[in-house]
């Protein structure tokens, strides 16, 4: 764990609220999410489809399509500066320079009509004002660093000529070209085969250490989280239900959702006769249940769960969960 002395976090998301739809008929996609990311830390954000994990990441870079979506409340502080108030020009300076992002599908993030070398060079020319030759030389170095074979030849290839794993390496090269302080990786290995996924995760971990960069890793894969991150936040239906060090959350999961989610993974390590399931399904944004959003699926739900959203309880230093039942243990 990082020694969280008085040093303020590099990035801090405070009570973020993101809504979709026309005023008066908004649907709340992110409902009061607070997260912080320290310098050099790897934070995982996990949850199932529609829980708001990707939207949280997009909010940081102000990439939510507006309309229909918008940030309706909260602050996002980067080194103390509130990004929710930053203008487009300011954001363009920050994107790729201070905070970079990589996505699940590199083919859609790369421009199909430009050569790989030009795409890496563009970032460097825009942010670091490098000349064409310098940018190309630096692009070559980056390709080597991200483990691309025959880098000189690859500089002049187009994205469609490369495999999925190689495209993701190119995306990483582009993202890291200007040595950002923060890398947001949104399901970076979900589209890849497992042996290639392992290579990309290894690469990200090495680069993160080498550059001392902070990483926010968005994923649905609890195995990836367990192996890669320092701290993890579990999201459900637009809220964080549990957060803590990866060891605490995985070994002492305290929110019923986290516990059930971990148990429902078909594990390679042991053999269960039946998989644990979570009854029902994730609620849609238009029909969010009142109170604790998980209560309709929760085996331990009680009447009070329907009435109000549970507050966060600190179970142990740095380990919090939002469940009424935790209050009992504390007071009873």
């Amino acid at each position, binding site marked *: 764990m990082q020694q969280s002395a008085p040093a303020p976090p590099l990035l801090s998301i405070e009570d973020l609220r993101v809504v979709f739809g026309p005023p008066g008929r908004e649907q709340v996609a992110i409902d009061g999410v607070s997260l912080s990311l320290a310098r050099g830390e790897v934070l995982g954000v996990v949850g199932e489809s529609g829980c708001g994990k990707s939207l949280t990441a997009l909010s940081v870079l102000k990439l939510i399509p507006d309309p229909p979506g918008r940030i309706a409340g909260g602050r996002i502080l980067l080194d103390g500066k509130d990004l929710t108030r930053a203008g487009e020009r300011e954001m363009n300076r920050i994107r790729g320079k201070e905070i970079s992002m990589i996505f699940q599908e590199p083919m859609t993030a790369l421009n199909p009509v430009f050569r790989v070398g030009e795409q890496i060079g563009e970032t460097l020319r825009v942010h670091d004002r490098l000349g064409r030759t310098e940018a190309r030389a630096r692009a070559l170095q980056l390709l080597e660093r991200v483990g691309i074979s025959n880098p000189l030849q690859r500089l002049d290839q187009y994205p469609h000529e490369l495999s999925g794993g190689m495209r993701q390496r190119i995306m990483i090269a582009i993202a890291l070209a200007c040595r950002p302080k923060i890398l947001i990786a949104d399901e970076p290995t979900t589209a890849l085969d497992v042996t290639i996924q392992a290579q990309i995760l290894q690469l990200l971990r090495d680069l993160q250490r080498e550059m001392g960069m902070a990483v926010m890793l968005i994923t649905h894969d609890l195995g990836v989280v367990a*192996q890669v991150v320092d701290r993890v936040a579990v999201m459900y239906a637009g809220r964080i239900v549990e957060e803590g060090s990866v060891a605490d959350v995985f070994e002492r999961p305290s929110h019923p959702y986290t516990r059930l989610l971990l148990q429902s993974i078909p594990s390679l390590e042991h053999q269960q006769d039946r998989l644990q399931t979570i009854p029902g399904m994730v609620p849609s944004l238009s029909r969010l249940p009142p109170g604790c959003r998980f209560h309709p699926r929760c085996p331990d739900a009680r009447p009070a769960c329907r009435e109000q959203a549970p507050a966060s309880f600190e179970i142990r230093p740095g380990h919090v969960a939002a469940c009424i039942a935790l209050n009992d243990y504390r007071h009873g």
Partner: protein
Amino acid sequence: MAERAPAGPSAQEPAPLLRVRGLVKHFPIMRGVLLPRPAGAVRAVDGLDFDIAEGETLGLVGESGCGKTTTGRLVLRMVEPSAGSVQFAGEDLLGLAPEVMRLRRQQMQIIFQDPYGSLDPRMTVSDILDEPLRIHRIGDRRSRGVRVAELMNVVGLRKEYADRYPHEFSGGQRQRIGIARALALKPRFIVCDEPVSALDVSIQAQIVNLMRDLQREFGLTYLFIAHDLGVVKHVADRVAVMYLGRIVEIAGKQNLYQSPRHPYTQALLAAVPIPRPSAKQALAPLTGEIPSPSNPPAGCHFHTRCPHVHDRCRREAPTLRPVGQGHRAACHLLTPFDEAGADAA
């Protein structure tokens, strides 16, 4: 090795329900605009031998391009094999006329990965489930209606949903519709092609449990194709691992997961991230990319990535040989095992 005997069928079992020998599918690559001519071939499936016993689940795993999906379609003759034989219940399917094959398909069904893509968006659930019955002229309108209700009940869909359209359902519910459709004709054998890959983990568990319950209830035989080794460990009795069109290892589940013999199987298992932070893994057990199936490496297809590669591996393709009881692998480096002579050293 553990002392418990493999649960699946072994040594002296009756004839398998499905028997595949020398199965090959080469897709020609055409070149030329006016007079397209074949200029090479993608060797999607390159000589497979395997059996599946009645009531058994054979898991078929491998990474993209290994040929697992094509294998599932070849077995059902949705794609015509280039060579080899597929026997179902003792009958050679490849020699059957199309009309006869259509009849056999009542017994052989498929469940797809993407239930949304495989369900007609303009048909209601009851139309979707009724369609196979109508096509095969089974029963009258009333008895088909009863069957549709029964199918919905069996897969856990409420009967009020009968008149809804696929887009009104979640991914998990759509997969239940896909499963119900596959069951409509009371098949004996189902090819399950990545049936839970597109689902969230909590929903995936529901569908996996459902498929196992249905297997027990109806005595179904599954060819379960997946890239997720955890899911396969959970549903399969035996597992075959494919790499670039070939089976590199096939064994009972216990053997395959606890003592994998082929270097590729070992690497594949080692690459799966374990959801337990204290089990710190060396993340990347393999270097290099998966070669293209249109131009696979000579000799052993895996030799370009194998940590134990020898000269012989580059020249000569290894055959699938016994390496343990009910356990076969295709690797030059493994000592053959004499299956007749039971206990090995």
